[in-house]
């Protein structure tokens, strides 16, 4: 923890992330305008005193939508990464610990998932299930799973090689306990790093898919959706696209900085 503090980039990232979470949690109290209600009379206003960041075509306050968008992006990011981490870790554990058949089957399945380019896999899943926020989280989660599976499998194999594990098995300690006490703690560190960096990717992918109309649907205020909304008015109302874009960039940047710092601290082997 102390080493993390020394890394200035990571600390900046951490503060920004905390700020973001705070904004997302207290979204309702921070916004003065309803993010969804339309007010056609006050459409396309430039940033000014009444609407700090302007309004979009339908008169909705950009700032309010931005703040609520933070909540959605964070939720999507967390759930997607959660799905990927839990699924991937479970698969990796099973494959790595029990070996042979389990390993073969599971890794073949993972290889199959990896045969598809990331975004396209998420795309295909959304094609099947239909475009909405729920399926978006599932799609992004599943497409991120292979990374965790492979990582965990490697960690498990490394941990299994330790003599104390061999000793524990020989003495008759049940598998579950071995996994819980000996294997899992070793696996935790790289998974945390991957999860942090994964959140950045998940938020980006989710925003991109929503931008294309394949994720969160309007009128929900999600940053990708806001960018898509403003795309046609780029010349006359630059603020509709610029602020969500900046929001995405800053969020992802902060998470990346935090993730890089965590990686340097927790697992120097992974350092780029």
């Amino acid at each position, binding site marked *: 923890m102390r080493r993390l503090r020394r890394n200035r980039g990571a600390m900046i990232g951490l503060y920004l992330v905390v700020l973001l979470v705070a904004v997302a949690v207290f979204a309702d109290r921070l916004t003065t305008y309803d993010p969804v209600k339309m007010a056609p009379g006050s459409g396309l206003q430039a940033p000014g005193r009444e609407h700090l960041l302007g309004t979009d075509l339908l008169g909705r306050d950009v700032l309010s939508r931005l703040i609520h968008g933070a909540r959605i992006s964070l939720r999507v990011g967390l759930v997607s990464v959660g799905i990927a981490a839990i699924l991937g870790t479970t698969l990796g554990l099973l494959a790595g610990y029990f070996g042979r058949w389990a390993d073969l089957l599971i890794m073949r399945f993972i290889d199959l998932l990896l045969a598809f380019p990331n975004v396209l896999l998420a795309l*295909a*899943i959304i*094609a099947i299930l239909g475009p909405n926020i729920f399926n978006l989280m599932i799609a992004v989660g599943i497409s991120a799973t292979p990374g965790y599976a492979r990582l965990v499998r490697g960690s498990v194999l490394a941990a299994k090689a330790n003599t104390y594990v061999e000793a524990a098995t020989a003495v008759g300690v049940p598998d579950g306990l071995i996994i819980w006490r000996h294997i899992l703690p070793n696996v935790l560190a790289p998974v945390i790093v991957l999860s942090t960096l994964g959140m950045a990717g998940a938020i980006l992918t989710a925003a991109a898919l929503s931008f294309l109309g394949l994720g969160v649907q309007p009128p929900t205020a999600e940053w990708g959706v806001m960018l898509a909304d403003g795309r046609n008015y780029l010349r006359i109302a630059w603020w509709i696209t610029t602020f969500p874009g900046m929001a995405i960039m800053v969020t992802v940047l902060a998470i990346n900085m935090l993730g890089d710092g965590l990686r340097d601290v927790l697992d120097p082997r992974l350092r780029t």
Partner: protein
Amino acid sequence: MPVLLGISIAVFLMMHMVPGDPAKMMLGELAVNKEAVENLRHQLGLDDPIAVQYWRFLTRALHGDLGRSVLENQPVARMLWQVLPSTIELTLTGLGIAVFLGVLLGVTAAVRHRTWLDNASMVVALWGVSMPTFWMGLLLIFLFSLKLGWLPATGQGGLLRLLMPAFTLGYVAAAVIARLVRSSMLEVLRQEYVRTARAKGLADRLVIYRHAFKNALIPVVTVLGLQFGALLGGTVVIETIFSRPGVGRLAVTSILNKDFLVTQGTVLMSAVFYTLVNIIVDFSYAFLDPRIRYD
């Protein structure tokens, strides 16, 4: 080879998992007539067991028949064939830009380690990884098309129309490559044989280029395959923003229009393409690093 088979099974299953009856969807309003639905189902062979349907799908696909698009009423294969060159053009150029910029940035950072150039390069790389592609594309359009009027914003054909999309596609990969090249170079520069070369009195530039550089590139090649996949995924967004014809954009529109056979075709083609590229990368990896050849 088994991977390709697996892909075909996966894609087939995916499209069949779509909730709803394809025949009903195709008939649309006429679907109220139960007999018509039954007839269409029989015609399309939807009554047969899944395995038979899969076999039919596979054999047809291998002969180039991927079904017909419901919306455009054209063979899917032909639609894919028409847009493929545009996507290939975009992806390859994007990859080229990514490698060029990435290597340039990474080597600069490594060679000027611990100077402001190193830090600046890494900040640029970090920013490249964090910036959403669709926003970058819109910004570029705003700057270079709307404000400055230098580059055309949409369409395909000609170098000018390729510049912005290819750059937008490639800059993320460039950032990833830059970081990798930098660390790889730093690692290599620490090696003993570099010290030996320097001690021999070889000019620094010769040392860097001949000895360090080529070895540093090896891990980059492994990453290239993955990055290519990322680029393929990126075409989905880029082609939509810049209104270029292409496989990616086709995938998006087909999903929005519920034109499932087209979606199936695009996903299948992309996955096969990606797998082939990865195989090529695996082979070239063995070619570049003699240590692996004797594996």
